[in-house]
């Protein structure tokens, strides 16, 4: 379903991904875990064709660079930080529905699903971070895509929002969707996925390694 082969990404002279290869089978749920800045988000950006990279990535056999439009028609994406310009929630979903030729009545279903039905006509600019994240979930799931990519999906969500998210992931897994979740919180995604891929310094590693980059904050009274 998803095949990444020797993916290398260099941005502004810095190596972000260094020969990453992995496969995700149809219906499988995989977590990309690693510390902040390890390359998880960059991997998702490669899957969406957002960045110029070396190597090859295919989704359902379609090359993400050559067949970008086909690939993105198969994928729903929930970013870490979503934004939707100056539109209302209903307009955001209507744009996606028209573009992807989805029945308009699904807009109300999705708004209801993510708990934003009462805010359908409100401008997204007035939304809290959690509400924007819920809308991003609705946008990603509106076309019922076979593949869904999540980037730190519950970071902005409150407890109810997190519960909604876990419930949605469970339903997607039961429905045979292929899921890829990037998160730095291993404990959060472990129960939501079939297996974990550990990313460290732009490479896939067998097991999580203690990050040498993280310097613990000194305790009170302790001197660095």
């Amino acid at each position, binding site marked *: 379903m998803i095949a990444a082969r020797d993916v290398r990404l260099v941005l502004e002279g810095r190596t972000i991904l260094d020969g990453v290869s992995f496969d995700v089978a149809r219906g499988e749920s995989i977590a990309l875990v690693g510390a902040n800045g390890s390359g998880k988000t960059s991997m998702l950006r490669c899957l969406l064709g*957002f960045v*110029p990279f070396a190597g090859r990535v295919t989704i359902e056999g379609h090359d993400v660079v050559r067949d970008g*439009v086909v690939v*993105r028609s198969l994928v729903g994406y929930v970013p870490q*930080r979503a934004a*939707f*310009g100056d539109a209302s929630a209903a307009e955001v979903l209507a*744009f996606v529905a028209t573009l992807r030729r989805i029945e308009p009545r699904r807009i109300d279903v999705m708004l209801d699903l993510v708990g934003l039905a009462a805010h359908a006509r409100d401008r997204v600019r007035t939304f809290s971070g959690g509400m924007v994240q819920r809308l991003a979930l609705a946008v990603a799931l509106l076309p019922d895509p076979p593949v869904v990519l999540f980037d730190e999906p519950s970071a902005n969500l409150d407890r109810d929002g997190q519960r909604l998210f876990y419930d949605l992931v469970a339903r997607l897994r039961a429905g045979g969707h292929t899921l890829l979740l990037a998160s730095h919180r291993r404990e959060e995604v472990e129960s939501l996925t079939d297996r974990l891929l550990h990313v460290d310094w732009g490479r896939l590693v067998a097991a999580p390694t203690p990050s040498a980059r993280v310097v613990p904050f000194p305790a009170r009274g302790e001197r660095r």
Partner: protein
Amino acid sequence: MRTRALRLVAARELRDAVRGRWFVLAAGCFLVLSLGLAFFGLAGAQRSGLAGFDRTTASLLNLAVLFVPLMTLTLGGLAVAGELEDGSLGMLLAQPLTRLEVYAGKYLGLLGAVGAAICIGFGTTGVIVGLYAGGGDAGVFLGLVGLVLLLGAATLGMGALLSVALRARARVIGAAFSAWLLLVYVSDLGVIGLAIARSLRPAQTFVLALVNPVEQARVLGTLLLSDRLDVLGPVGAFGIDTLGWHGLVACLLGTLAATAVGTVAAGYVVFRKVPIA
């Protein structure tokens, strides 16, 4: 490129632009300033009241070549940089759209908004002048509106190019303002200085002067208003002597249109490689 996708992106951009404060501000400014110019245009002749189309068009030409590039350079400048920074461009590009559809759609949507602001501002003045003053050639006034739209298309393309090249809102705003100063004020002085310092031939000065789209629009507007060669100065006179009135108009219109198309094409070439956060 799929026209349906292009239309959808353009409509989304137009809707967002028309809702923005800049649109109300721009349309309002065009209306107030153009009406003011039409009303006070006869002050020099110790008269008051609305001037006819010819005098209003002449006054509006100077207003348009000053304000339209300022508006479009900043607007085009924020087209990509703003959305790249706030993350909404990533949401758009995660949809099954090509980068060409996104870039061209955004450009056309913004051009539609600029056109609406110009038509509301200048159009209302045109209607009022037509109803209450009347004198002069309304065709010339309409020609000016078309010319201003073409100038807006060219400078909007330049702004969008700056946007994809610099990609940060603060840098783009600075660059857009510098580009505006360069196009509106500095380039004239530069050409004059170069012509004197290098003893340029009239043909060289002519080409150099007309590289600037603002200058192209200014000369075209002047040609719209008057057949007299002397109002265009020595460079314009050289152009008319060499190409003829029609030839010069066609050359300038072609160059202005080519600037619009060229800057949009250059912007797209850069945009294709822009990494999306």
